[in-house]
């Protein structure tokens, strides 16, 4: 273990020395307060379990009817997939596309990606592709909006409570399950541990194959060498 591991704060670029942190504690940047680490116990296993559960429940949650509104004997029900199709059918293509991406496609892609990453770390078979996949997960992270959709469902229910009788269908409960799995996997994912694990497995793989381990950047404590270069 490197005794003086140098890190940089991703939000204010402060040069810091990494210190040990216990589970349940948070490591904060002393200057800007960014969270630099929040270890979770058995993070890989927990994420693997939650993403598998999420993937199992994904199809019923998206395609089964969520609610049935009953107004004077006329019933109408729909699923999340229907809400996207309804926008397309009424020619709101851009809005429909946004709903499709944020509520249907990206949540699925995120779950699949996280599942593959957690599974390959769990079995010790992570590769360069795992690292790229995990990076892409961070790209997509805030574009999956299942929890916003959940509040949307609640607002819809409250809005229609006076006008129609509301029946909760199977899809509604499946959606709650999917939401819990997605939120849980994101909350229990220890980013730092995942990256360290990817590093560790890459190093082990390289040593096994007889290739030199990748050079770690040494902290440069001397005068900054960057300004002397001169910019073109």
């Amino acid at each position, binding site marked *: 273990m490197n005794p003086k591991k140098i890190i940089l704060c*991703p939000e204010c670029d402060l040069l810091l*020395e990494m210190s040990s942190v216990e589970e349940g504690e*948070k490591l904060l940047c*002393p200057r800007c307060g960014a969270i630099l680490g929040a270890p979770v116990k058995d993070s890989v296993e927990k994420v693997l379990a939650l993403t598998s559960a999420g993937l199992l429940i994904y199809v019923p949650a998206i395609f089964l009817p969520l609610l049935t509104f009953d*107004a004077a004997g006329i019933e109408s029900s729909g699923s999340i997939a229907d809400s996207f199709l309804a*926008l397309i059918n009424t020619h709101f293509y851009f809005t429909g596309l946004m709903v499709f991406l944020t509520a249907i496609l990206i949540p699925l892609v995120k779950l699949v990606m996280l599942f593959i990453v957690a599974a390959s770390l769990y079995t010790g078979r992570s590769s360069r592709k795992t690292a790229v996949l995990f990076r892409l997960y961070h790209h997509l992270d805030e574009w999956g909006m299942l929890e916003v959709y959940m509040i*949307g469902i609640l607002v819809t229910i409250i809005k229609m409570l006076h006008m129609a009788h509301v029946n909760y269908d199977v899809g509604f409960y499946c959606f709650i399950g999917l939401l819990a799995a997605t939120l849980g996997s994101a909350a229990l994912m220890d980013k730092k541990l995942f990256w360290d694990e990817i590093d560790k497995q890459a190093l082990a793989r390289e040593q096994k194959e007889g290739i030199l381990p990748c050079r770690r950047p040494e902290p440069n*404590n001397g005068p900054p060498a960057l300004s002397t270069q001169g*910019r073109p």
Partner: protein
Amino acid sequence: MNNRQNDIACNVGQGPVTGKEAGLMICHYCHKVVSCHDYDEATICPRCCATVHTRKPGSITYTWALVLTSLILLFPANLLPIMQVDYLGSQEYSTIMDGIIYFFKEGSYGIGIVILTASVLVPVFKIAGIMLILLSIHFRWKTWLRHKTMMFRFIEFIGRWSMLDIFVIALLTVLVNFGFFSTISAASAATYFCGVVISTMLAAITFDTRLIWDTCIPPNREEE
């Protein structure tokens, strides 16, 4: 903020204070520290293959462009009708504000406040907040750095919640479909509103918080 200063990573002795001065940069995605030999030149992260920059290139320009775009889109999004209700053959259009006023009149203040926050206050706060941060970088205001970073973190967090109204309308379109009796569909403002959400979210992504802290170089050691 309740930070446990003693357990926290502490500033390295007498050496340089920021990564930029030390000739180091951090991968924005996997947070790996990479040394930069040539100032401002991008390298590939050895761990996750992302392009690593000392600062996000063109950050200020992109963020200004996206914030101004969302500011322009905010007007049609709020002034045009976002929902069309056909009730017994008569058409009725309502804007975002109409929907909120409806809830307050009905007496459901809780839900009214949720929608007011998500669809009106959040976009306005985001645009105003990002513009304030950009102006403070432009004029090199060296105060409230920590608070500005915290505000930006909050802006980043709340960004996605503006989609709430769009999801509600999408659901109402499907679920309130009682033929001639009553149907609901989206109206023109929905597209503009989506545009506001996307451009403010992208503005938060293109902005580099480290630029806030660059105003205090050479850094003041008594800062903490």
